[in-house]
């Protein structure tokens, strides 16, 4: 495995989860969730706390991260998002409200770090979680386990949407909230479920992320543009598109940074923020509906046609 690919895969799985969460929340509640940043960071700190205080492998605490993220999501929905949705607030207002929530969460993270330092003599502001990683076949486990876990979670979620009655009603509400309402579905429950799943995915994604990079209180804040880039690359209206988009952005970032740094020197590392910007610019200007808008079905045929055209 190329050296960048190992952590690249972990990071890409993290972005797939977070970008998927952003997309899910957007297609259900019209909310661009800024709080994804600090929800992700909280997920990391839950796993960190468990690992350093109670021992064992970080993976044991990942379910807790997910649950904590769900809790943060529920609080956001009940306290903030629901009242605004009832008022039919504008998209920009919904977005601002999650920004406020994010800052409150960030404040909580910083205070919690101080508390950890003071009470347990820990150094929670620069954490290398991968040093707690287990080993499989003589190499670190995370590049194998985490992508698989992400795929597993997304498969379960897919089955839930495709097969269960509540899952179908969720799709129905996303597509046509009005008709879903008059058919007797309670959109409130659907939105709550979206925040439970979306919040959980955000925090779990944050826990994943800390296995690929240094965990800091602003980890989520720094990577938020990448999460949004993934969601936008996915077309913003398609859940699976968002997940794929996040994954691609993650891989592209690690790959591009690695090879460019080999070519041009380490100074390249400082400009990685240009990558999500570039991706967003390309998507928005060239194919505005993202990956989901591409004609996947007819793509091979069209490509083949184009090739034949070139030959003849």
């Amino acid at each position: 495995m190329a050296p960048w690919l190992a952590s690249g895969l972990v990071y890409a799985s993290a972005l797939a989860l977070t970008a998927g969460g952003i997309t899910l929340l957007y297609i259900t509640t019209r909310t661009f969730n800024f709080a994804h940043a600090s929800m992700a960071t909280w997920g990391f700190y839950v796993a960190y706390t468990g690992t350093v205080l109670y021992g064992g492998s970080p993976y044991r605490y990942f379910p807790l991260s997910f649950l904590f993220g769900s809790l943060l999501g529920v609080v956001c929905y009940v306290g903030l998002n629901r009242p605004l949705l009832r008022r039919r607030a504008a998209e920009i207002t919904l977005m601002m409200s999650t920004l406020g929530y994010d800052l409150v969460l960030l404040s909580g993270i910083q205070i919690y770090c101080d508390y950890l330092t003071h009470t347990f003599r820990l150094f929670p502001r620069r954490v290398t979680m991968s040093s707690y990683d287990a080993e499989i076949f003589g190499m670190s486990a995370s590049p194998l386990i985490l992508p698989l876990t992400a795929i597993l979670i997304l498969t379960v979620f897919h089955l839930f949407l495709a097969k269960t009655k509540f899952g179908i009603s969720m799709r129905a509400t996303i597509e046509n909230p009005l008709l879903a309402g008059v058919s007797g579905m309670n959109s409130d429950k659907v939105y709550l479920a979206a925040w439970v799943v979306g919040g959980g995915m955000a925090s779990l994604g944050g826990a994943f992320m800390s296995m690929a990079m240094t965990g800091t209180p602003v980890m989520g804040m720094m990577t938020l543009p990448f999460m949004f880039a993934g969601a936008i690359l996915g077309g913003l209206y398609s859940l699976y598109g968002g997940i794929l988009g996040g994954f691609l952005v993650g891989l592209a970032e690690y790959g591009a940074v690695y090879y460019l740094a080999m070519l041009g020197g380490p100074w390249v590392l400082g400009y990685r923020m240009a990558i999500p910007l570039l991706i967003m610019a390309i998507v928005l200007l060239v194919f505005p509906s993202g990956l989901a808008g591409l004609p996947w079905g007819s793509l091979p045929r069209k490509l083949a046609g184009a090739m034949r055209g070139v030959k003849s």
Partner: protein
Amino acid sequence: MNINRLYAGYGKFKVLFDLEMEVPANEITVVVGPNGAGKTTLLNSIMGVATVFSGDVVYQGKRITGTPPHKAARMGISYVPQMGNVFAGLSVSENLQMAGYWMGKNELNNRVDQVLDMFPVLRQFIGRKAGTLSGGERRMLAIAMGLMRTPKLMLLDELSTDLAPIIAKRVMNEVARLRNELGITVLLVEQMAKRALEIGDTAYLLVSGQVRFRGKAGDLLRDPELSRVYLGIKES
């Protein structure tokens, strides 16, 4: 159901003005009127979809203004909207399943069989996405979804649009049968005014958000002035 002094619209935009209406139980009440008169808005405000500024909607002696749509649906009101009345991304069977969302499993399956008997064509599309159906097929699915709920009150918006005349006639007869055999109250908005007024009991003519005529359906049909100007029905 009674509607008292209703002012309703969307956001700040008023569409209905001081509307008084009575929808007697076990009867078909027909609402006709030109495009943009506010017929759809009337149904939307009963269902809690449009904004109600003032006035009341009283259903079974209870004031239901402002109840959210899903509660109204569970009180036995079934609404077949004019547009966006099927879930395009869901299969036909999933659509029917969603329409009877809170029914038990057995009851649900029975009902699905019953409504499919009414529209046998739908059986052959059962696994297909509703978005791939033709206009008329979609309309049939929407009506089937409306009937899934064994309602007490049905709000039907532009039932016959998109349907071939023969199917439209069958649907109208079906509506009449709902009233006659099951005693369902129907509020019917229709462009095919003639046929609708024939099966209807009471009629309202809505123009620019206000009631222009109320009375027996037959009377409106026979009123030479109104039926010619607003309904395009020639005197016979």
